[in-house]
């Protein structure tokens, strides 16, 4: 029964990773860049949410919406100021800029909110559903997390595959020049992608800190990296792949923490990633694209 508990916790953690990873991979797909600052947007979202709920005593959903709005705007601003001028630059230059943005966000947070950890108040009441005489307990936040994740997954899949803007995003991620020749405003489409990704990051931040309530300026970096790793693990560019990869990673991480060692859990997670990539170099659900000769 403890096994089942761990498993559900793993799924819950994986769901948070999945929400982060969706934003990460969408941006990766369209801008072809590893946006290392994505994790820090999560942190900003969590802080906004924290201040709205704990300091200004606003209702939780207002806090979350506020966080989403602010992160969306932040995402667009960062893209416009830091990444857009580098559209033609080599990818490594963009990577370094993203790292610079990450430092910038972290240190701004440090100045504004200090390095003292904040104790995050969950966005819904603490409590749990108990089964089998309390042997199996599923907390409310776990259910909310998993439900939110599934909802976002479905909405995003429909948006990308069916809607006009979603198709424009796919077109841009394949060939920006050709997309422009179709009359697609590439810059606006990229901004939209950053906006959606950052909005999702804010939601992930609120959920992450509801489940793991200590909030510091570096809260976002490791989950950000892990979520991206999980997306690679699932097969980058594939939404179901990212989802599956993140769930598996969450479960593996919780199991490693519980059964092996909490200090080594990250090492185990990364080791599994490496093994998977060795067996399936394009990730679990990724397509191996043979370079045309």
């Amino acid at each position, binding site marked *: 029964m403890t096994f089942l508990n761990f498993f559900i916790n793993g799924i819950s953690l994986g769901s948070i990773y999945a929400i982060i990873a969706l934003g990460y991979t969408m941006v990766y797909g369209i801008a072809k860049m590893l946006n290392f600052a994505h994790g820090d947007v999560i942190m900003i979202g969590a802080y906004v949410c924290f201040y709205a709920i704990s300091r200004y005593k606003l209702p939780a959903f207002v806090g979350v919406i506020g966080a989403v709005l602010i992160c969306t705007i932040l995402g667009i601003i960062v893209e416009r100021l830091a990444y857009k001028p580098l559209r033609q630059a080599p990818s490594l230059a963009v990577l370094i800029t993203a790292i610079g943005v990450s430092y910038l966000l972290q240190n701004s947070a440090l100045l504004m909110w200090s390095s003292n950890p904040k104790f995050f108040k969950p966005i819904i009441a603490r409590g749990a559903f108990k089964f089998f005489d309390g042997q199996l307990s599923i907390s409310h936040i776990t259910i909310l997390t998993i439900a939110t994740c599934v909802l976002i997954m479905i909405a995003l899949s429909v948006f990308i595959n069916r809607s*006009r803007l979603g*198709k*424009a995003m*796919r*077109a841009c991620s*394949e*060939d920006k*020049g*050709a*997309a*422009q*020749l*179709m*009359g*697609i*405003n*590439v810059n606006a489409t990229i901004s939209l992608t950053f906006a959606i990704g950052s909005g999702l990051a804010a939601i992930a931040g609120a959920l992450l800190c509801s489940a793991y309530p200590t909030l510091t300026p570096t809260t976002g970096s490791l989950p950000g990296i892990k979520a991206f790793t999980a997306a690679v693990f699932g097969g980058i560019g594939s939404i179901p792949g990212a989802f599956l990869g993140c769930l598996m990673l969450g479960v593996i991480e919780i199991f490693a923490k519980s059964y092996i060692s909490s200090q080594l859990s990250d090492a185990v997670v990364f080791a599994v990633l490496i093994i998977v990539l060795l067996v399936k170099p394009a990730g679990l659900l990724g397509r191996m694209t043979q370079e045309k000769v």
Partner: protein
Amino acid sequence: MSEQNKKEALPQNKNGASPLLKVDNINVYYGSIHAIKGISFEVKSGEIVTLIGANGAGKSTTLNTISGLLHPTTGDINFLEHSIVKIQPHKIVEQGIAQVPEGRRIFAQMTVRENLEMGAYIQSDGNEIKNDIEKVYELFPRLKERRKQIAGTLSGGEQQMLAMGRALMSRPKLLMLDEPSMGLAPILVEQIFKIIADVHKTGATILLVEQNAQMALSIADRGYVMETGKIITTGTGKDLLSSDEIKKAYLGG
């Protein structure tokens, strides 16, 4: 509204005063490389005009400059008597210029139909888009057979058809084709040129860039010969075809 009328009136006066597209002494640089050195030409409504010349002469650069993907440092480009040099590429599509890029550049991961829908991105009326897709299918029956196929799995000739169909979806007043015959088998080259002629019959104005000078000149009203960023000769298709100099340099005669 008067603007609208003028546009519709244009196809009739084929040799009328104002050309559809007028390129006026443009200079284009890639970094420090002077790729286009002050070229001027015009395309009148209803014409097929071709730019021919060797690899690296600046033909594609010219098209990309008209599409707004590149910007001239000096000079002007007028489309329907409005300057378009400072306009972003996606706005230029809205003005009525569509380009079939070199190497086709279809969206390889999307289906044939989705590709065509992307071509109609600037249209908003769903029914019209559907009608337009049907029209494209009429022009290219092969595409209809393959409408649900992922575009990347099409053969080269089919991809070229898709790229042309996609460009037509925006209902362009000027269709620019960049090397449509590149890398195609002789039989397909003939087909593609036949299709270009068909498209032209439907009233489209065409600016064609080609290596295959023979073919291009045989369907063109007028041609311009480019060499290292400059236009060196111009004339009607027939004149250029029979010119000894051109024959020697570009037609392998």
